[in-house]
């Protein structure tokens, strides 16, 4: 995926593949019983590996598209409508954060993904707080930030590994 001239067809195929992969990761995640931990909202966010990798390897618009399609697909297959809203809120915040941090060129995908993980959970919880009017949820924020941070860092680590293997340099723009 070096920055070579790619044809429109190639690009569409690539994006399709990545979206499928992304969706596959969402499904794997769906199978892991994280709810057993007893804390709602905790997950690895594996699909974000794909989104972040695309952000670095292809571009912002393309990564955003993959992300959005992934969320809608997950909603259609195993989600609820409120789940979709939470997911959108979390992803929007985390994606915006990722783009900004990547642009700064000060962080590797590990840092970008870790911050994105934390932001995702903040966005999700904020949406839940607004929708359910439950200010008691505020109490979960620190836990969710830390969990998102670690999960994001792990994902970021995987993204760096992928990027170095496909030969993408991630100094930023």
């Amino acid at each position, binding site marked *: 995926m070096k920055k070579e001239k790619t044809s429109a067809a190639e690009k569409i195929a690539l994006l399709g593949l990545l979206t499928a992969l992304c969706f596959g990761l969402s499904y794997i995640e769906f199978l892991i019983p994280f709810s057993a931990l007893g*804390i709602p909202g*905790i997950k690895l966010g594996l699909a974000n590996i794909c989104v972040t990798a695309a952000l670095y390897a292809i571009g912002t618009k393309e990564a955003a598209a993959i992300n959005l399609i992934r969320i809608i697909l997950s909603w259609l297959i195993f989600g609820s409508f409120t789940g979709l809203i939470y997911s959108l809120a979390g992803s929007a915040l985390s994606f915006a954060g990722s783009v900004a941090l990547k642009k700064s060129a000060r962080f590797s995908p590990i840092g970008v993904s870790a911050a994105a993980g934390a932001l995702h959970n903040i966005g999700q919880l904020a949406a839940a707080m607004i929708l359910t009017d439950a200010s008691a949820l505020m109490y979960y924020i620190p836990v969710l930030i*830390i969990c998102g941070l670690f999960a994001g860092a*792990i994902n970021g*680590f995987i993204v760096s590994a992928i990027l170095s293997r496909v030969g993408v340099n991630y100094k930023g723009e």
Partner: protein
Amino acid sequence: MRRLLAAMAASAVLLCGCSPAPKKYSAVYTDVFDTATEFAAYCDSREEFDLYAEALHDELLRLHKIFDIYDEYDGLFNAASLNKTKSGGCPSELIELTKSAVDWYDLSGGKLNIALGSVLSLWHDSRESGIPPAMEDLKPLAEHCDIDDISVEGDIISIKDPQLSLDFGALAKGYAAEKAAELLESVGCADFVLSVGGNVVARGEKPGGSWEIGISSPDGGILTTVKVSDEAVVTSGDYQRYFEYEGVRYHHIIDPQTLMPANLWRSVTVICKSSADADALSTALFCLDEQSGRILAENFGAEALWVSSKGEVIRTEGFEDYEK
């Protein structure tokens, strides 16, 4: 990665606390020591808890009657009887607390005085009527507050001054909480938290850690939370019992030297091993300046937190260790 996951799970558990297996039960009483008493414990069944709660309530009622200065009870020579007759054979608890109160008078530099009964009773009436007492009414009463007029011999307490009366208000609740906690432990209740009008005694732990005691801010809300397992916590505050007259607040902690509500602090919180000491200390510290208070607290191995009249918060060094 596994380590990261473990760390993640650990922080999650740490921050959330665990869901307990034994259930938390609680009881509230409003008929002892003219205040609200709260009792909470983790027990396996409601029956077990009720057993403890009943034993506790009986013990508090018994102690309440002993230190009651308003009413007398059949077959009991209590504080009210003593104030009336000025001499008599008293229950051991009355003897014990009177002796300790005489020591506290010296320890607190006169700020804690059980002989202040007549002055306090005038203030008590004021709280009922909503009009503060006049200084010219208080002054003559203050002449009958000499702690040296009280003597204890064997099980007999005698008051030399016929116009002097005793008031255990500043000490009785903390002492009673201590006694009640001892009783609860003796009947097999190991993990509980008890508050007799803000005199908290904690024993053992709740599932997942120490007991958490919130300290109210004088202006409402919670100022801070302390974690204790075998300690007593008590707060004396100007917001607990008061009345307002022409825009001025008159609260219940009267400085024996000025005969007026002490106004150095808005609240003082004390943490130490003994609930009886904690109660006495919090009242004494409420009337003392910071320096004297610090020395007194240190002598008892107690930690303290002051909220000044300007709203400034001061702590002893060790107090912070309880706040984590």
